[in-house]
């Protein structure tokens, strides 16, 4: 699914104006625990999260996420936005909550990119 379609589905606002919105997103992953993200995600997904600190961008970059959506209309910290621009990670904010966001994207055909790992 194209990032631009995802943004429409979640009533999202793009926070990084330079971002290429034509990229393909292969799956989704939602979490607020960065260790979970690092442990159990697959590459080329979109990350849905309530965290807004710069570590979110770093985590996304390490785990090969293609974009990040902040839930419940959250705005990232200035350092986060700065880092995202530098590292070319598209940031989107959506007024929807985590459950509604996951639901909409899943219903539209975006698969879960969560891997089963024993914790």
């Amino acid at each position, binding site marked *: 699914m194209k990032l631009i379609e995802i943004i429409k589905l979640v009533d999202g606002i793009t926070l990084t104006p330079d971002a*290429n919105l034509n990229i393909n997103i292969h799956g989704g992953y939602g979490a607020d625990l960065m260790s979970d993200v690092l442990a159990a995600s697959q590459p080329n997904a979109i990350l849905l999260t309530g965290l807004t600190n*710069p*570590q979110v961008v*770093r985590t996304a*970059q*390490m785990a*090969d996420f293609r974009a990040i959506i902040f839930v419940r209309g959250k705005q990232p910290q200035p350092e986060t936005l700065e880092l995202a621009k530098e590292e070319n990670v598209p940031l989107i904010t959506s007024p929807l909550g985590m459950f509604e966001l996951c639901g909409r994207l899943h219903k539209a055909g975006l698969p879960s990119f969560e891997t089963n790992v024993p*914790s």
Partner: protein
Amino acid sequence: MSPHRARTEQELNGRHGRPITDRDAHEINRVEELSYDLKIHEVMSKKLHTASPEMSLSDVLEVLRINRISGVPVTEDSQLVGVISIEDIVRAMQRNDLTETVGQYMTRDLVTVASYDSIVKAMQTFTESQVGRLPVINEEKKLVGMITKGDITRGILFALQKDYKDEEVRRYRASHLFEDIISDRTTLVLRYNIKAHDFTHGGNASSNIKRALLRLGADPQIARRCGIAVYEAETNLIIHTTRGGILKLEVEPHRITMSTTDDGPGIQDIDQVLQPGYSTATDQVREMGFGAGMGLVNIKRCVDSMELESTVGKGTKLIMRIHVPAENFNGRKDG
């Protein structure tokens, strides 16, 4: 896939004719940036064909035909006095007037652009003036070149290609490192000093390590595993150490070794810290999404071997190794 999509001339000019939507704004950004960065003198044609007002139109037609161009500037005593184009000549042909002089039919209403202006200025001038080519003048108002929409398109495409090539070249150079340097055993060592509690820059070193590995030609899967492991390790240095520590990456053709060393406080019970969920992190760290007691567990899952040594009061050393299949780093095995 290049993030920069090549754009046609219509696309570049098209946006002037209609309101810019959000989507346009995202898509044209690098091109738009370039249209401010690139100067007219960088893209204009400097090879000048000129005509004089006394020249006959049939002679000019010959110049246009031979050089396959559609117009030339007209100069008199090295001063720009007009432009003569195919359209002007067609007008003359309709009246069977080709023996007439350039001075009779040339466009005297001169629109020019300055060589030191950005190409965006030329783009605006093209739209406003509805002409296909513009004479370019320098600070002394002397004619120095001509610019067409085609020159602009070519200039932008060339610059976009250069952006793309720069990364390719870096990658190429790095990926041949192990081939170019002959030794019995070549190891590339990268060291990073990690400050304690510096969350703002947390992950910078890991990010640089991952990028270095990709440039060296590592498989993206391997780069990802290294990135995750080293990021968890870097985070541990930031969260837990007294005075920070050193993060080290050693790349050999067959193996990647990452390690962290610090001088305190040291770990009381190593078996305990390896238990999933065991954590000594503060609430502040947890609020940032870390400190769930998964770091070392996660590292273990990403690497082929992990060693953890620690002495309370002295410090901790963590070594992580990933074996590299032969096809990485240019397919060359050690030795």
